[in-house]
């Protein structure tokens, strides 16, 4: 079977909390090897969409295919296999506080591979060195800075060499310099390892720095407002909200 060019396919996805519909029948694809960024104003459903993509929330309707497998319906062993295809970095890092960075990275390997303890430790150190934290392998999450925690979370997400990495607001709560460092890291991992990135963000500088393609969500339309490269959205899109977002202007959005 030939691998399709799309690693993620979202088909007519409806996201809702009870009766409150947030996104209605949206469809989009993420191509293999690209950096795909989901943007939008606060409360437009970015994080909700992310939770659906990684299988934490079941959608009200629609399908999400990750590398051909449907995460909305998969269960048991099928779901376990699907989950190993991606890694997630949560907004706060969500490292396990009672484990060192190294142990955080080793946890999934311990469960899902037959590697010896020695081999696991070496792999964990290598993953940590990819994000520049090899010297902090024995530190606990509380002993390092917020930016470092996020990088460690990326290392942990890469433990099982997933094809896709989901990052939830990588630049939230970071200063511009640290944030730019994280952008460089994303670009390097994308180029050198061919990992596909799906990033939720609203940081303009970061979007320009990393994104190959962007989709913009909108709460009033409960769907995708626009899609394309960041430059296209900035220069060629006529929608007032897209224009306002990319030119950092306040905008009266119809409620």
């Amino acid at each position: 079977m030939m691998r399709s060019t799309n690693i993620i396919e979202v088909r007519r996805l409806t996201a809702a909390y009870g009766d409150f519909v947030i996104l209605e029948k949206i469809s989009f694809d993420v191509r293999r090897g690209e950096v795909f960024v989901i943007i939008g104003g606060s409360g437009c459903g970015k994080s909700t969409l992310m939770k659906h993509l990684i299988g934490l929330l079941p959608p009200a309707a629609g399908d999400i295919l990750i590398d051909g497998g449907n995460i909305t319906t998969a269960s048991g062993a099928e779901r376990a296999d699907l989950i190993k295809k991606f890694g997630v970095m949560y907004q706060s890092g969500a490292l396990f506080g009672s484990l060192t960075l190294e142990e955080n990275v080793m946890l999934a390997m311990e469960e899902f591979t037959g590697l010896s303890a020695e081999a696991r430790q070496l792999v964990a150190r290598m993953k940590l060195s990819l994000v520049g934290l090899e010297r902090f392998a024995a530190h606990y999450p509380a002993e390092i800075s917020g930016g470092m925690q996020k990088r460690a979370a990326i290392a942990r997400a890469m433990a099982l060499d997933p094809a896709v990495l989901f990052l939830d607001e990588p630049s939230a709560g970071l200063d511009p310099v640290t944030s730019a460092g994280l952008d460089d890291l994303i670009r390097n991992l994308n180029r050198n390892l061919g990992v596909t990135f799906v990033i939720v963000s609203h940081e303009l500088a970061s979007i320009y720095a990393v994104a190959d393609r962007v989709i913009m969500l909108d709460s009033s339309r409960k769907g995708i407002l626009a899609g394309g490269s960041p430059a296209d959205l900035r220069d060629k899109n006529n929608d007032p909200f897209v224009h306002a977002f990319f030119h950092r202007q306040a905008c009266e959005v119809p409620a």
Partner: protein
Amino acid sequence: MNFDPESRDLVLGGRLDAAEVSRSWKVLGQVPGGCKVDALKLESCDGAGLAFLWALSRTKKAVITGLRPEIAALLKPFDELPPDPADVPGRDQSLFAQIGRASCAIFQDVREQIAFIGEFTSTALLCFANPRLVRWGDVWITAQKAGVDALVVAGMVSFLTGMIMAFQAAVPLKQFGVDLFVVNLVALALLREMGPIMTAVVLAGRSGSAFAAEIGTMKVNEEINALETMGLDPMRFLVVPRVMAGFLVTPVLTVYANALGVTGGFLVMMSQGFPFAALWNQLVGAVGVSDVMTGMIKSFVFGILVAGVGCLRGLQTGNGATAVGESTTRAVVSGIFLIVLVDAVFAVIFYVLKW
């Protein structure tokens, strides 16, 4: 501010600030609808003053004249504010709505408890079939925290309870000349009821709360989500080791608490002049196998309940730091409630079985 009850006109002047408004808010009740307000001398106005003006013009339909343009501009953004607070979308705070919400919350909680029991049972059976799935390291660490570290407090509570019961019983029983039977009373009460219950309550206070706080904090920090998306079942990773530790540790703690409680009772009796041998013979004669077994069976169940409900409350934690505090409280309260409830059920069962 000057309100003339005769002409029913209001004259505003000077600074209309929070201090002034708090003195004159009651004027709003006295002015008639559609009265005239002269604001020519009004110099400045703060947020409270604006609210006063807004209430005059919107709820009292007063005609305000002479308002300075800069103050009128401050009032402008509130033109479309609905005059009636009921028009503002918000929570229905009526009694019915509150009862409804509370009932829904209770049903929701029961549903979650049933789902939790089912999920836990299936995971526990899976772990039973394949013990390699159990995180034994976590089991031992939790057993140490919940068990070994609780020795002092559980022991002290039980020892003192034994002494207190002996003291209290000694006087009335002495009146009938049967004070040796204090041993029966203390031993049976401890082995059948007090020992298991007090140990379980100590466990609920020390460990049930700790489980809820640990797991609740992990929930708030998205660590539970992280486990799930790493393909690691929180039930197997967090709940099974803790419940297993509770199951293993509670009976041992209960035996230890029972022993110390009886020792406390013995000490009191020996201070009254009874020889140890007489007390020991009385104890051996009084306590049967069923007395020990009923207490032990209960302590196993209490251990599972307290640890389980602690974990459940942790997993139910909502968002934010207050949510963690709430689930900790709920863990202790539910734990103690369940202990008493299940103890009552056991009392009936043992009565029917004549144990």
